[in-house]
């Protein structure tokens, strides 16, 4: 009782410590390298504490918490200093401690006076006894001896924690407790290392505070205090007395969500220091996170960092790895949260942490854990990505890369389950490009995993995953997989659909998915051909059959269609001389000229054509098992083209610039070099092989300066350029012209009737895919109906055709369309793609495809939309 009286008095006078303790602490902290000043201050603080006990501590912390809340304050450093100072209170100041300042015991007389006065006031009788003249003699005697000085008391560190907790719990909604929260958070790392009781108190406090913050709707009731009144009666008294003394700003109501955020940070700091929180607390934390998110959208990024930190520190502690059970429990608690807020909160941090966790062998080996990861987090992430894809912001969706990382890391332990999750998603083209393609690009193959992995079972899993991936892609190509949400449950897809119906008459979504999945297929085969072959050698036949079926309509006829309308470009359009004319002049005016429609440009290839030739180029330039299966298919296309070209040459349409024989007689004085086309045999290394039939399928002469590599190298990925700008400058013609006519061209003629040759292969097609027949047919129709608008892609198709022709020994190449552009690269050297080059080429091609698709989402004919969003990055690391 006396204690409370004393405290009241003290607070009525208004806490003198707050007046000067900040300056003292500033001095203490700044005297980092002057131990004598620190000793002096520590001694004084010891005396202060002896004098005023907890009220001193409270007032000091109160003052300091305000300072820590200032933005320009180096808070962790300051908090460390404060902790250092107050941890000296654990020990009594002894005479042995250094006293360079010479202040020890200097105030003893004053202390004694003060004590005497106190005693005279509180127990006057004793005091009067002390000086009263005894009847016996002159000597007076004292009944109760007045102590020399204030008794030295020790401060236990866990009492500091209790002080904090009590102050905060007293009224969590005022600014004071917000500051105290921050202060406690900063002190937590130090406190945690102090002793075990401190850890216990901290944990209990965090639990209790979590309860308060969740229970309290408006923070009026003080339901928490009764739980701890027994253990910290003093502090209650302090904090009750405090608000009356503090100025109004201290007790000004604070934003509840700010308080909650501070609480979350406290939890993060606690776990970062190595603390564990119980299951109940975790539930409360989740509740609080929800509450914060509900209240303020602006704190989403803070929450995302908190979640990542929290999970990371809870589950990844050095030397003290958590049990599987804890991990599963924690993640299970957070999962609903993630599911609810995956779209509004950037959870990529959390997912990265999860990916790191999967590297933990103990956790990864546990089926429950991987089950949790896959069935909860991967599904949530994939759902979110799909939703994002349907709204066209997948590529700026922050979760995407983190999710991919997580899936890749978890695929080694639960590959099948992951694939299952992926397969559950409708594979729209952007989903495929944004999620599956990057995943395929980074997924480990057996050759790379041998180096990195120490666990055997992972190597076992990988081929199966690749197979699943392959089958997924094939399913997309076959059209058996939904590319969109067909049901109306998703509003986003509804919106999307309506927009599609507005913009284009029919949705080309399956075609787009087809295009991207073809790219994915290329990647898969490029990277994991060995794995797949090893796992299932017979798969290639199936693959090639599907490819043939899907691309059955792809050919080069598009190039012939508009031949009639194409005119020779007017020389007046060319500002340059005739020599440079055949390089690029038309393209200079091409995109902007309004008169373009009168002169037909290069006939744009249909999408199916584009895909076909793109695939063929890849087949020819990069070695793959598919080569054998697809050779006939390719030859068929090429020979058809050759026939076509010959026919056209015979028809000799006047004014056409297509035929080689006609070219000489056109306005161009010089026969185009490019038309002659250097033979592959011009490369000395490859000459002997070219003579054999299978040469091209095995050793792959490849255009080194050809478009894909130059695209990836020179073209800035984000901004689209006109096609001519991407082209490397032509090599000086003088070196090549001699080879034009002298070399004997070996023409590989395909079988006249393709079906006779591949009859056995194509036979199973209808039966195999009968169930998806109409879908496929519709897709084939769509693929035929959709044309490639991008000039880059269109030009690429031409070049690919020409390249293939050259590789197969045809001399009569497809002309580069009516307006002869892209004609100079032919003489560049042809070289096989390495795996890396192949992947780069595929990636850059996919980028262009995506741009193309993006354009077609909007106004199809909008030529002015040259500025393309530079956000497209397939792989961001």
């Amino acid at each position, binding site marked *: 009782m006396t204690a409370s009286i004393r405290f009241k008095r003290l607070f009525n006078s*208004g806490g*003198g410590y707050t007046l000067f303790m900040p*300056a003292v602490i500033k001095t203490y902290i700044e005297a980092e390298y*002057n131990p004598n000043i620190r000793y002096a201050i520590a001694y004084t603080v010891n005396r202060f504490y002896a004098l005023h006990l907890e009220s001193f501590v409270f007032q000091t912390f109160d003052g300091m918490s305000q300072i820590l809340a200032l933005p320009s304050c180096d808070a962790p450093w300051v908090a460390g*200093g404060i902790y250092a100072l107050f941890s000296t209170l654990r020990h009594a100041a002894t005479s042995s401690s250094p006293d360079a*300042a010479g202040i020890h015991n*200097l105030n003893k007389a004053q202390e004694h006076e003060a004590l005497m006065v106190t005693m*005279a006031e509180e127990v006057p009788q004793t005091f009067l006894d002390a000086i009263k003249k005894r009847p016996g003699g002159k000597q007076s005697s004292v009944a109760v001896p007045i102590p020399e000085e204030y008794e030295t008391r020790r401060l236990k560190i866990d009492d500091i924690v209790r002080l904090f907790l009590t102050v905060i719990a007293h009224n969590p909604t005022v600014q004071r407790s917000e500051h105290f929260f921050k202060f406690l958070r900063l002190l937590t790392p130090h406190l945690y290392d102090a002793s075990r009781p401190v850890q216990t108190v901290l944990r209990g406090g965090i639990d209790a505070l979590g309860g308060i913050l969740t229970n309290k709707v408006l923070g009026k009731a003080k339901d928490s205090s009764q739980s701890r009144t027994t253990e910290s009666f003093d502090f209650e008294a302090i904090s009750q007395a405090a608000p009356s003394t503090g100025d109004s700003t201290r007790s000004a109501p604070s934003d509840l969500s700010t308080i909650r955020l501070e609480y979350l940070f406290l939890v993060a700091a606690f776990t970062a220091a190595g603390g564990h929180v119980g299951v109940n607390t975790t539930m409360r934390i989740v509740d609080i996170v929800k509450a914060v998110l509900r209240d303020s959208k602006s704190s989403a990024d803070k929450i995302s960092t908190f979640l990542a930190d929290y999970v990371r520190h809870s589950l990844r502690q050095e030397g003290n790895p958590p049990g599987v059970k804890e991990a599963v429990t924690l993640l299970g608690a957070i999962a609903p949260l993630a599911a609810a807020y995956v779209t509004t909160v950037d959870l990529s941090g959390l997912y990265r942490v999860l990916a790191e966790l999967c590297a933990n062998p103990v956790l990864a080996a546990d089926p429950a854990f991987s089950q949790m990861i896959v069935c909860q987090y991967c599904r949530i992430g994939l759902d979110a990505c799909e939703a994002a894809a349907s709204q066209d912001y997948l590529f700026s969706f922050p979760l995407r890369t983190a999710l991919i990382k997580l899936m890749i890391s978890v695929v080694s332990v639960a590959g099948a389950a992951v694939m299952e999750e992926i397969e559950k998603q409708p594979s729209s083209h952007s989903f495929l490009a944004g999620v599956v393609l990057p995943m395929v690009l980074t997924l480990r193959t057996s050759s790379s995993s041998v180096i990195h992995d120490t666990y055997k079972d992972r190597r076992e899993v990988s081929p199966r995953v690749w197979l699943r991936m392959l089958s997924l892609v094939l399913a997309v190509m076959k059209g058996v997989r939904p590319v969109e949400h067909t049901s109306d449950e998703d509003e986003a897809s509804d919106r999307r659909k309506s927009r599609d119906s507005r913009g284009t008459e029919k949705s080309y979504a399956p075609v787009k998915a087809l295009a991207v999945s073809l790219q994915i297929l290329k990647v898969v085969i490029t990277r994991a051909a060995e794995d797949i072959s090893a796992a299932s050698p017979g798969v290639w036949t199936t693959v090639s059959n599907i490819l043939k079926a899907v691309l059955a309509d792809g050919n080069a006829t598009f190039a012939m269609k508009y031949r009639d309308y194409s005119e020779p470009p007017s020389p007046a359009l060319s500002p340059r001389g005739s020599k440079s004319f055949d390089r690029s002049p038309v393209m200079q005016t091409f995109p902007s000229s309004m008169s373009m429609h009168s002169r037909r440009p290069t006939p744009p290839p249909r999408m199916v054509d584009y895909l076909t030739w793109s695939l063929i180029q890849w087949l020819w330039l990069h070695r793959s098992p598919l080569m054998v299966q697809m050779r006939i298919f390719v030859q068929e296309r090429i020979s058809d083209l050759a026939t076509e070209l010959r026919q056209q040459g015979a028809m000799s349409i006047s004014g056409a610039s297509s035929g080689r024989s006609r070219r000489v007689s056109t306005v161009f004085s010089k026969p185009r070099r490019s038309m002659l086309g250097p033979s592959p045999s011009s490369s000395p290394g490859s000459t002997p092989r070219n003579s054999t039939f299978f040469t091209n399928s095995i050793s792959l002469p490849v255009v080194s300066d050809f478009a894909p590599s130059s695209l990836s190298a020179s073209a800035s990925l984000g901004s689209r350029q006109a096609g001519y700008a991407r082209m490397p400058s032509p090599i000086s013609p003088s070196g090549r012209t001699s080879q034009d006519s002298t070399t004997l061209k070996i023409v590989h003629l395909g079988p006249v009737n393709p079906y006779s040759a591949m009859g056995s292969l194509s036979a199973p097609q209808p039966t195999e895919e009968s169930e998806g027949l109409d879908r496929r047919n519709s897709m084939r129709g769509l693929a035929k109906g959709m044309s490639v608008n991008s000039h880059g892609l269109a030009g690429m198709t031409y070049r690919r055709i020409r390249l293939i022709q050259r590789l197969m020994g045809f001399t009569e190449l497809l002309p580069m369309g009516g307006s002869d552009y892209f004609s100079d690269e032919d003489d560049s050297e042809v070289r096989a793609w390495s795996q890396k080059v192949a992947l780069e080429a595929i990636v850059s091609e996919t980028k262009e495809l995506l741009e193309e698709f993006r354009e077609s989402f909007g106004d199809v004919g909008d030529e002015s939309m040259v500025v393309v969003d530079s956000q497209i990055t397939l792989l961001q690391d």
Partner: protein
Amino acid sequence: MCHREDPTTRRVALERIGALATWRFQILSQEVILDRNHRRPFKLQRPPVLFVATDIGSSLFIYEDDADEYRDINGHIIPLELRRRLSEIGWEQEDRIVDYRIQRVKTPMSLLPTQHLERLDGDSLDPPPVADIQAPSPEPSPTKASPSGSSLARRDSHSSFRSGFKRRPVFVPALVALFPSISTMISDLDFTVASTAAELVMDFMRDDPSILARTVFQLISGDEQAITVAISTLRAFLHVRHALPPATAHHVLNHLTGFLKSSVKQAPSVHPLRGFAYSIPIIAKLVAQVTKLSMRDIRRAKVDMLIIPSGSLWFSPNAPAGPMFPRGLEGVTFAEVPLNLVWITIIRSSQNLLFLNMLKRNPQDIKVIRKNMARLELPSLKFGMALPDLTLADMIPRKPHVDLRARTRTQATLTALSLTLARSHLLLVEQVFQCLPRHLNDREELAILIDGLVRILLAHGDDIGIVAHVLLGMSRILYLSFNC
């Protein structure tokens, strides 16, 4: 002047002056033939002292009660406050008897005038009159027998002459003018010379301070050179003995305050502030030694504006106008520290110490300073700006950044000045805390004092002495506020 190389010569000269001095009372008792035209021999014209001395305190030794007397049975000193309260409720310690022998023991015999001692020996059986605190001592003060016509004569009203005959000392002005030289010889390299000079000066300080200090006070109104000589002479006096005879202390103090008062009014010299700055440290020292000095005397002498500190560095606008009370830095060149700043720092530091001494003697004087305490301001080259309030942002600890620029001399001087003022202020504040009533209910007042401490700590947190004193002061205030 008489600095000869040969120490013996100097010593012999000093001895001769001493002989002349001891004979000064006897000269007039010689049989002489009177000249009609010069009725009084040795009455020579002397340069006047240009100011009127004040009358603060007493020139006599007065025994003062010692606080150490009040102890409880454990030997602890009972605080004054408690004592007062005890006396209020009638718990006076009636058993205290005045022990004259203790008083006699505590009387500094060697500081009293020689005639005084003779008398003290004579009637030692009677209760000595010094025991009575209230009444002025009836002791004769022969030293007051200054020559008539001097401006000092006014003071003589105090002293009553019990002895029947009047002894007039004869010490011609030519000899009086030697005292500045003699005082410098106190610190002579030759110790025989030094001790002889010290002895000579000490004799005069006991018996005849007016003769001793006469030259000083003639000089002090003069030009810069003269002031320097005068002040160093006074300083030499101070160094003869750590406690000066009460007569000398009283004499010098009153003359100095008189000098300051006159400078306020007429501004005789070019730099009145210089004289102020030079003389106030001496006043601060003497305040502790002049007996029966009270705030009432100071008030009556109208010098409180000069010697009471306020905490602020410059004078407040309500101080009298004039060059003695600068309101701030004027016309400064930033190349070096302006003299005004140095002087005002010296003045303020000395005032702090002066008041510290007064508080030590009489804690009641605290109420004088409590009224007009202002926030502490440390010397700086900034001027024209109001002192900014301390904010929380000032309290943020900052990592000590290494100052790559070499500290300029100006900065070093400023730091030294600031430290000086801070130290004196700390001492004063500590004492103030001790003297404040325990039941302090004026937060504002406390805040000003603590603000001063905090400012000092913020400015000089790297100086361990400062830190120690600040901490002591802070602890003291806690013992105070413990009960409020």
